[in-house]
């Protein structure tokens, strides 16, 4: 069994989640609009990964022994940029430049421009295959690196995700730990109204994955425990952790609503959102 987190560790992770959200929305507001909703729903898994699960070194982003993260839903890069900046991969000032001419931080995650990004993504459906390739290479070389993969629910409407879903169990990629940020919303509305994903846990299970279905995918403790379980499971299967999350979590103007995907964020709205997020932070 894994060691239980202390109360202080839990508080630290929770605070980190809200810091990620605050910095992500500030980053988006500097430009005026961006992918707020998914950045808010994915913040907690990023908080856990970068708090104590992943091996990485901000001073040496290309460290060979690091674990890899593929944010396949690459449009949620603001949350990852915020995470990386807060962890010291690059200066916080960079967050003010997203999408501005000549920036290091394009709207979609870019491995060539951003220290700490392992794979460029943005054309949905592609990241899983790349993560599987990385995991396969580490297995063949008997290296201990884990590969983490974050998929979107809308993204999982892409057929390539299911090609990968067949491939990874075939090759026993138990060093691949994947998540679906199942926030139930996509650009045009609710997934259920557009192309329903249904029971994603059952789907991946049937494809041969070791699946954990988290009722509250924004709960850092649950995420931490699921990752620990995934790391220590001995089925030889790749792990899938379904995160039932809330899109736009923390900013009530968009939270769980169809306007949450990529809203404009005015100066006034930013103030409003930050006040809300700060109150969550302070409540810990």
């Amino acid at each position: 069994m894994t060691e239980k987190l202390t109360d202080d560790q839990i508080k630290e992770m929770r605070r980190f989640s809200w810091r990620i959200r605050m910095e992500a929305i500030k980053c988006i507001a500097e430009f005026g609009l961006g992918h707020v909703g998914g950045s808010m729903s994915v913040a907690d898994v990023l908080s856990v990964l970068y708090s104590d699960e992943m091996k990485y070194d901000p001073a040496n982003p290309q460290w060979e022994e690091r674990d890899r993260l593929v944010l396949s839903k690459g449009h949620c890069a603001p949350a990852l940029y915020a995470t990386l900046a807060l962890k010291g991969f690059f200066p916080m000032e960079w967050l003010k430049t997203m999408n501005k001419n000549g920036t290091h931080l394009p709207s979609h995650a870019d491995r060539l421009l951003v220290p700490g990004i392992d794979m460029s993504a943005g054309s949905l459906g592609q990241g899983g295959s790349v993560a599987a390739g990385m995991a396969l290479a580490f297995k063949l070389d008997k290296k201990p690196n884990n590969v983490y993969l974050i998929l979107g629910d809308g993204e999982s409407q892409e057929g390539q995700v299911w090609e990968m879903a067949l491939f990874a169990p075939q090759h026993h990629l138990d060093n691949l730990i994947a998540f679906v940020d199942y926030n139930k919303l996509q650009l045009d509305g609710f997934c259920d109204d557009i192309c329903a994903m249904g029971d994603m846990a059952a789907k991946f299970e049937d494809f041969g994955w070791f699946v954990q279905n988290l009722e509250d995918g924004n709960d850092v403790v649950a995420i931490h425990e699921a990752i620990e379980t995934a790391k220590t499971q001995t089925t030889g299967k790749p792990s899938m952790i379904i995160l039932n999350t809330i899109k736009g979590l923390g900013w009530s103007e968009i939270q769980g609503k169809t306007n949450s995907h990529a809203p404009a964020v005015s100066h006034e709205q930013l103030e409003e959102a930050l006040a809300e997020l700060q109150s969550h932070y302070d409540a810990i």
Partner: protein
Amino acid sequence: MIVKELKPEAQEMRAAFCDRLIELAETHPELMVLDADLMGAMGTKPFLAKYPERTVDCGIQEANMVGVAVGLSLAGKIPFAHTFATFMSRRATDQIFISGAYSKANVKLIGSDPGITAKTNGGTHMPFEDMGIMRGIPQMTIIEPTDITMLKWVMGWMADNYGMQYMRLVRRESTKIYEDGTEFEIGKAVTVRDDADADVTIIASGLCVANSMKAADILAGEGIRVRILDMFTWKPLDDEAVIKAAKETGAIVVAENHNITTGLGAAVSETVVSNAPVPMELIGIHDRFGQVGSLEYLAEQYGLTVEDTVAAVKRAIARKG
């Protein structure tokens, strides 16, 4: 370096491909082979037998195969990924573009059965557009090896050089053009024939190189002098050789087993019109789909015969001022 007499290669291209993979695997421990359920068709089962742990038959999922190859390469492997050229180009373009080229990965993409060599697999499997699709992807290196000597050299270059590279490859018969051991240079055309004061240059690729050499013999009998460039690297194109050909011979015929819309003829035209406009004739597929048939039948159907080349040369010369 050029053989004295054109003869069919003794070995099929795919057998040479597999032999060379096994050779390179010995010197390149990171080399891996990926396929999408066409190892039997491509003749790479001997590689599987020798290196099972370095072989990944992904099943019928080309998009995933390309993504997996990218992931392998970003973790230090040198993946050679094969499927038919139709599927590699049309099915997996975005994966090659974004996961591969945009992300600066290191994957060696092999698309087999180019153009009419798909023969009885017919229209669904007959790629007249694969090189054009790849040419639209920034910074890709795009190659069509002419014979087995060149194939072996090119594969060594691919294994040694980081980057996204596409090679279209005939699976079966080809004509031996180069003596064993001939060295090449990526991005440099090979002058396979150069008559003094040539009247025209044929810029050819793939099976059109041998055709052009046969056409040149016929034309020589009629007093027409021909330069032939084997333009096996389509990108980066050898602009210098193209411009020189335009200026020195005053007319160009491009011969390719591909559509002329996005193919070698289009690429050469871009260089010619910008630098030294001269009359050009384009031998290739003119806005048509593929169909089943023998190589000879298909060459006639699409205007890729020796006689077609002779006629195109005469048309080009007639248009010279």
